C-alpha cells in the first residue's frame, strides 16, 4: 500500500473517532518500520518522556483539581467572589470569570469547570435577570479561561514537550491570563450597565463570613504561585503539596468527601483523564522525534521562508494556522504534535519560545470555543440542554473579544516575558 493510501485511511479512522493515541502510534510505528528501524524505537522514546520528572505534576494537580471539583469548594468560591464583586454593575459576570479562571487553572480545562461551576452559576445568572444568551456564552467562554494560569495542565504539557522550564512558563502566563479576564470583565460590566441589572449592596459581614467559610482554600493559589515564584519549591513539589493538602482539607476538615466512599472514585475519574493524556504524550514522542530526525521542521521553514520574510508576518500566519489547529484538534494532542514542529521555525524567526508558548495556548484556548470540535461548546450544550448551534451563537461575541486580546498578546511580547525577567526565574 502506498503511504498516501495509508494516510487517507488513518485520517478517515481519526475522523470516525478512533482513539488519537492509536492513530499517532500507528503513524510512528509505520514511519520507523519504513526506515528499517525496529518499532521498539517507539517505546524507547516513550520511556524517555514517560520517566520525565516534570510528568509527575500532571497526575498530582489533576487529582487535586478533581477533588476540589467534587467538594463544596465551588460553592464556597462563588460565595466569596459574590461578596467581593456583587456590588459592581454586571458584578456576577465578573464572579463567573474570576471563579472559572481560578478553577480551570486547577482542573486543566478538561470540561470540569463548566460541569462543576457552570452548573452552579448558570441558574444564578438567570435568576439575577441576565439574558439567557449572554449567560450561556459567558459560561461557555469561562470554561477554558484559566488556561494561562499556573498550575494548568496545558502549561505543564507545553513545558514538557518544548523543554522550557516549567517555572518560567508559569510566570509568563499570569499577565496575559489577567488581560483575558479583564477584557472579558469589561464586556460583562458594560452589558450589566446596559441591561440595568440590580446590584447587591456590599457588606463586610458577607465578606467576612464568606472568607471564613473558604479559609482553608483561599491560601492555596497564593501558596502555589508564591512558592514557585520565590523559588521555595518547584512546580512538581507544588503539585505534591497541593494534592496532599487538598485531600486532607476536603476529607478531614470540611468533610465534603469520604475517604473510602468518594476518594477512590475521584482517583479513578482523574486518572482516566491523566491516562488518556499520558497515552498521547507517550506515543506522540516517537513520532515527533522521527519528524525532527527527518528535519521536517527545517524543510517547513525553507518552505515558509519563500512566502514569509518578517517575524510579524510569521506571527499572523501562525495565529491563523493555530486557530485552524484548535478547530481540528484538542489541546493536548495539539501541544504534543505541533509544538516540536513549530518551535524550530519560530526560533528561525527569532520568536522567544516562552512567548510562543503563551501565543500557542491562547490560540488553543479560543479553539475550545470554535466549531466543529470546540470542546466547551459540546459540554455546554449537554450540560444546559441547548442545541450546539444556540451555544455557538451565544459564544460568538466572546470569541471576537478574545481574538482582539490574542492580537495584543501576540504583538506585545513583554506581556508574557516581563514578569519572568523581573523575577529572574530560570
Amino acid at each position, binding site marked *: 500500500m502506498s503511504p498516501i493510501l495509508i494516510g487517507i485511511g488513518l485520517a478517515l*479512522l*481519526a*475522523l*470516525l*473517532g*478512533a*482513539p*488519537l*493515541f*492509536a*492513530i499517532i*502510534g*500507528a503513524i510512528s*510505528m509505520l514511519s520507523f518500520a519504513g526506515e528499517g528501524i*525496529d*518499532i*521498539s524505537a*517507539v*517505546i*524507547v522514546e*516513550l*520511556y524517555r518522556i*514517560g*520517566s520525565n*520528572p516534570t*510528568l*509527575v505534576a*500532571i*497526575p*498530582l494537580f489533576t*487529582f487535586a483539581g478533581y477533588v476540589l471539583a467534587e467538594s463544596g469548594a465551588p460553592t464556597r468560591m462563588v460565595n466569596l467572589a459574590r461578596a467581593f464583586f456583587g456590588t459592581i454593575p454586571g458584578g456576577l459576570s465578573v464572579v463567573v470569570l474570576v471563579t472559572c479562571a481560578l478553577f480551570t487553572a486547577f482542573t486543566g480545562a478538561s470540561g470540569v469547570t463548566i460541569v462543576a461551576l457552570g452548573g452552579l452559576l448558570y441558574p444564578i445568572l438567570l435568576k439575577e435577570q441576565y439574558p439567557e444568551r449572554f449567560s450561556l456564552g459567558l459560561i461557555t467562554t469561562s470554561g477554558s479561561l484559566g488556561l494561562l494560569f499556573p498550575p494548568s495542565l496545558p502549561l505543564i504539557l507545553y513545558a514538557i514537550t518544548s523543554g522550557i522550564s516549567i517555572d518560567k512558563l508559569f510566570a509568563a502566563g499570569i499577565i496575559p491570563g489577567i488581560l483575558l479576564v479583564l477584557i472579558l470583565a469589561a464586556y460583562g460590566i458594560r452589558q450589566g450597565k446596559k441591561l440595568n441589572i440590580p446590584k447587591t449592596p456590599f457588606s463586610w459581614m458577607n465578606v467576612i463570613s464568606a472568607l471564613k467559610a473558604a479559609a482553608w482554600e483561599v491560601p492555596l493559589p497564593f501558596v502555589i504561585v508564591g512558592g514557585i515564584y520565590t523559588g*521555595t*519549591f518547584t512546580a*512538581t*513539589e507544588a*503539585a*505534591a*503539596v497541593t*494534592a*496532599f493538602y487538598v*485531600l486532607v482539607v476536603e476529607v478531614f476538615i470540611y468533610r465534603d468527601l469520604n475517604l473510602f466512599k468518594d476518594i477512590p472514585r475521584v*482517583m*479513578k475519574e482523574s*486518572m*482516566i*483523564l*491523566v*491516562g*488518556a*493524556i*499520558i*497515552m*498521547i504524550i*507517550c*506515543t506522540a514522542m516517537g513520532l515527533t522525534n522521527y519528524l525532527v530526525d527527518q528535519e521536517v521542521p527545517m524543510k517547513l521553514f525553507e518552505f515558509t521562508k519563500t512566502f514569509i520574510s518578517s517575524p510579524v508576518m510569521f506571527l499572523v500566519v501562525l495565529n491563523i494556522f493555530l486557530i485552524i489547529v484548535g478547530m*481540528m*484538534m*484538542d489541546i493536548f494532542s495539539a501541544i504534543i504534535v505541533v509544538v516540536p514542529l513549530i518551535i524550530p521555525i519560530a526560533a528561525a524567526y527569532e520568536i522567544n519560545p516562552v512567548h510562543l508558548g503563551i501565543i500557542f495556548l491562547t490560540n488553543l484556548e479560543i479553539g475550545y470555543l470554535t466549531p*466543529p*470540535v470546540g470542546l466547551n461548546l459540546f459540554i455546554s450544550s449537554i450540560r444546559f440542554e441547548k442545541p450546539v448551534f444556540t451555544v455557538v451563537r451565544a459564544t460568538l461575541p466572546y470569541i471576537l473579544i478574545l481574538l482582539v486580546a490574542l492580537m495584543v498578546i501576540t504583538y506585545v511580547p513583554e506581556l508574557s516575558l516581563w514578569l519572568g525577567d523581573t523575577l529572574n526565574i530560570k
Partner: protein
Amino acid sequence: MTLLRSLDRLLYKIEFGFLVAFLSSMILLAFMQVVLRNVFGTGIVWADTIVRHLVLWSGFIGAALATGKEKHISIDALTKYLSARTRHIVMVFTCTFAVITCYYLGRAGWTFVLEQQLNGGELVLGIQTWVALLIIPAGYFLIAFHFLIKLIENAISTFDGKQEAK
C-alpha cells in the same frame, strides 16, 4: 462471550484497585519527599525514581480504564451525529484498528523489556529495571483486550440491530 465479558469486568476491577494503590502511594511519597527536603534538608534516595515510575504505571492503568468509559482522546465531532446503528458499525472499524495498533505497540514494548532484561541493571530497592517497565507491554495488551471486547459488543449490537440505551 459471557465469559469474556466477565473477564473484562474483573480486569477493570483489578485495575481500579491497583490504580487507587498506586496513586495513593504516589501522593504520600511525593509529599513526604517535599517535607523531608524543605523542612529537614534530607530526602529518601529512592523516592523520586519510584514516584516517576508510579506515574507510568498509574498512567497506563488509567488509560486502560479510559477504554471502558470511552474517554480516550478522539475526534468525536462527526460521530455525534450518527444514528445508533451506524455508530456501532463505525465502532467496529475503529475498535479493530485500536486492537491491532495496541497489539503491535504491546509487542514493541515487550521487545523493549527483553532488551532491558538482557542489559540487566537495577532501578532502586532491588527492583530490576525491566520489571518496572513491564507495565508498558502489559498496559498496551490490556487496552487491546478492552478494545477487543468493545469490538465484539459493537459487532453483536450491529447484527441485533437493537438500540442500546445509554
